[in-house]
């Protein structure tokens, strides 16, 4: 199977039919004898966003058998797909397949044709029976409800656009308030035919110009619990006439040309995956023939091709600039190269055309070990999962090796011409964005500052001395409008220091903020190396005279700094104020959070219960003679 998948992945997409047929046959043979677990990773690997409709449909049929053969997911993400005036069946199938490919256990509900409003407005609808965590409104431009006439005035058009927005906003609000779900709403794909031809975008009442106006209004006004899915960009990307193949609309009310549905489904899933904290975090780059043309060890500084003046050099420069732009918005960059380290660093230090500098790279690994082992080192040093890495390397042998030895790492197959790499990477949507925070742009800096702190540590001798030398100051405050999105983001992304891994949505946290029984706290930390930003979240509920900790998590950027002890002291004070008799904590084990198995024991809690599934429950009595835990963090008042 491994060989079949590899030979399918490693041939160019225009010549892979034969390899795909062999892979299908292999998958079917495994599934036939009940090898559902064995088939699953290969099914995931084959479900590429670039696959054609018919092949994707074949995979979906195999997926259905695999899904039926695997145990029911324990706590699936419940995704409801509500179609506007379009058929969503194939789209829903492909979304389900790509959710599976993204490693997300999901239950999918699909509404009947064009009953989106009934589903949302009728409290007894199938939608509410299903109980969605995410609702996707699969609309197209034909679902616009307030289109202007060509002779309408500007003010009428503005009024219509406001009504259009209000129409959708009311639906979002209803479904969200009823279920606490996140909403994914398509924007409107501009129709390819233009009645006003070249004048279309200048005339306010023309349909094209109206669609653009409404799309902007959706983006400007969507509340935090609504993600606007950029359908119009998908249409433009493939070409509007290709996207809108009218035959299939007339024949079956398809939302777009069938061949475009695969990419459409992948795009929707990437947005959901990002909300669930599954976006990739780190781009790992090879060096020779990946960031520059030629081999630095053989060709030397004078021989490598990079920079303006020749096409090959410009292509490599564009890749560097692309990586640098990603870093600018928070993607971590790392280097993984087979080279002598000093030689590998030379271009970064001495080649003026380099767009990437050493201080852009959070982790630089150049040696002669195999790259799979080096990728593990990189993940370890950055304290992120292997499944957060994307590995970009020109060498097909290295790519195949990494796929084989470190299958958690995403390894895109790249065309030979580096000029085609950026579009190839973009197709995979590895670094999809659920929300943007001011802090994101500094995200990569945190990892670098961390490396600097690591270097200080050994010299200061004792850990206490080191911690004291950091001059840490922390701010603890209830979650509010300005910290809601970052807190939610942390809930989505934290896997290791996370006691219960409950992925509450911003909607649910909003509800907690408004509920007196709930205590919400965020912690922001600064030290002498800089501002680490909002790094910890705690959610607890007063229940029957006990303060029950629903969620306690922390960014791994600040491990072993005493933040948990500091927050514990705050929590204890709070428990006294609330007059509860005890604080209760729960640890729910996952594949990633063994780090905090003894969290409550360390803080002085006593274990009171341990059900079979590995979950442990802990309690700490609230008394007057409790001694606060020692920390080296000073409290900063909320107003600065």
């Amino acid at each position, binding site marked *: 199977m491994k060989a079949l998948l590899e030979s399918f992945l490693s041939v160019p997409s225009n010549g892979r039919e034969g390899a795909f047929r062999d892979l299908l046959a292999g998958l079917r043979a495994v599934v036939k004898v009940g090898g559902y677990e064995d088939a699953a990773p290969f099914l995931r690997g084959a479900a590429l966003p670039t696959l*054609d*409709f*018919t092949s994707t*449909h*074949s995979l979906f*049929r195999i997926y259905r058998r695999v899904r039926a053969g695997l145990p029911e997911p324990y706590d699936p993400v419940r995704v409801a797909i509500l179609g506007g005036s379009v*058929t969503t*069946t*194939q789209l829903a199938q492909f979304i389900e397949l790509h959710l599976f490919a993204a490693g997300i256990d999901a239950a999918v509900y699909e509404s009947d044709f064009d009953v989106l409003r009934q589903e949302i407005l009728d409290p007894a609808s199938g939608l509410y029976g299903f109980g969605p965590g995410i609702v996707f409104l699969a609309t197209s431009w034909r679902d616009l409800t307030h289109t202007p006439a060509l002779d309408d005035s500007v003010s009428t058009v503005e009024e219509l656009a406001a009504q259009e927005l209000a129409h959708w906003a009311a639906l979002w609000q209803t479904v969200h308030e009823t279920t606490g779900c996140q909403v994914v709403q398509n924007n409107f794909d501009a129709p390819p035919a233009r009645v006003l031809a070249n004048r279309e975008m200048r005339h306010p009442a023309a349909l094209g110009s109206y669609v653009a106006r409404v799309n902007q209004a959706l983006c400007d006004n969507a509340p935090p619990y609504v993600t606007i899915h950029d359908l119009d960009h998908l249409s433009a990307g493939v070409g509007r006439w290709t996207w809108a193949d009218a*035959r*299939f609309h*007339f*024949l*079956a009310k*398809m939302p777009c040309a*069938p*061949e475009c549905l695969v990419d459409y489904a992948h795009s929707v899933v990437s947005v959901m995956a990002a909300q669930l904290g599954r976006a990739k975090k780190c781009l790992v780059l090879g060096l020779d023939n990946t960031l520059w043309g030629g081999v630095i060890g053989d060709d030397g500084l004078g021989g490598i091709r990079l920079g303006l003046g020749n096409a090959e050099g410009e292509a490599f420069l564009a890749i560097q600039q692309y990586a640098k732009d990603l870093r600018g918005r928070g993607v971590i960059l790392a280097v993984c190269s087979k080279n002598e380290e000093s030689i590998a660093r030379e271009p970064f230090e001495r080649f003026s055309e380099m767009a990437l500098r050493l201080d852009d790279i959070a982790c630089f690994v150049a040696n002669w070990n195999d790259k799979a082992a080096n990728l593990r080192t990189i993940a370890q040093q950055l304290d992120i999962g292997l499944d957060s890495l994307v590995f970009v390397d020109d060498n097909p042998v290295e790519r195949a090796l990494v796929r084989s030895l470190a299958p958690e790492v995403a390894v895109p197959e790249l065309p030979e011409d580096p000029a085609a790499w950026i579009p190839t990477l973009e197709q995979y949507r590895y670094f999809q964005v659920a929300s943007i925070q001011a802090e994101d742009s500094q995200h990569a800096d945190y990892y670098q500052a961390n490396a600097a702190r690591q270097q200080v540590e050994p010299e200061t001798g004792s850990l206490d001395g080191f911690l004291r030398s950091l001059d840490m100051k922390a701010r603890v405050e209830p979650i509010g409008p300005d910290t809601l999105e970052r807190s939610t983001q942390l809930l989505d992304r934290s896997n290791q220091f996370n006691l219960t891994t409950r992925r509450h949505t911003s909607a649910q946290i909003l509800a907690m903020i408004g509920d007196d029984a709930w205590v919400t706290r965020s912690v922001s930390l600064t030290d002498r190396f800089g501002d680490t930003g909002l790094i910890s979240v705690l959610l607890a509920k007063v229940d029957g005279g006990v303060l029950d900790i629903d969620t306690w998590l922390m960014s791994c950027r600040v491990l072993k700094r005493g933040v948990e002890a500091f927050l514990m002291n705050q929590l204890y004070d709070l428990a006294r104020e609330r007059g509860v008799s005890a604080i209760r904590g729960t640890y729910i084990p996952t594949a990633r959070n063994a780090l905090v198995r003894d969290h409550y024991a360390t803080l002085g809690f006593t274990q009171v219960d341990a059900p079979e599934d590995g979950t442990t429950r802990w309690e700490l009595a609230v008394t007057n003679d409790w001694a606060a835990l020692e920390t080296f963090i000073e409290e900063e008042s909320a107003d600065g």
Partner: protein
Amino acid sequence: MDDLHEPVQAVFRELFDDDEMVLSDEMTARDVRGWDSLMHINIIVAVEKRFGVRFANAEISDLKSEGKNVGNLFEARRNKLAGQ
């Protein structure tokens, strides 16, 4: 029946997950379990891709009645390929 019969049949066998499916000119969508309107789209997309042709809506009838059967699909595809 001609030499295009075999590859079209292969497409159908794949789509219906049925290695023993045998196509005949007289066959209609009603004769085959699972041939609903969605499968119909899947068939058209697969045949178009396999043969590199593009049907007009009028050529791809619903294949549900006499005169509008699999023979009709063969005919449409034969015309397309002849015209290339």
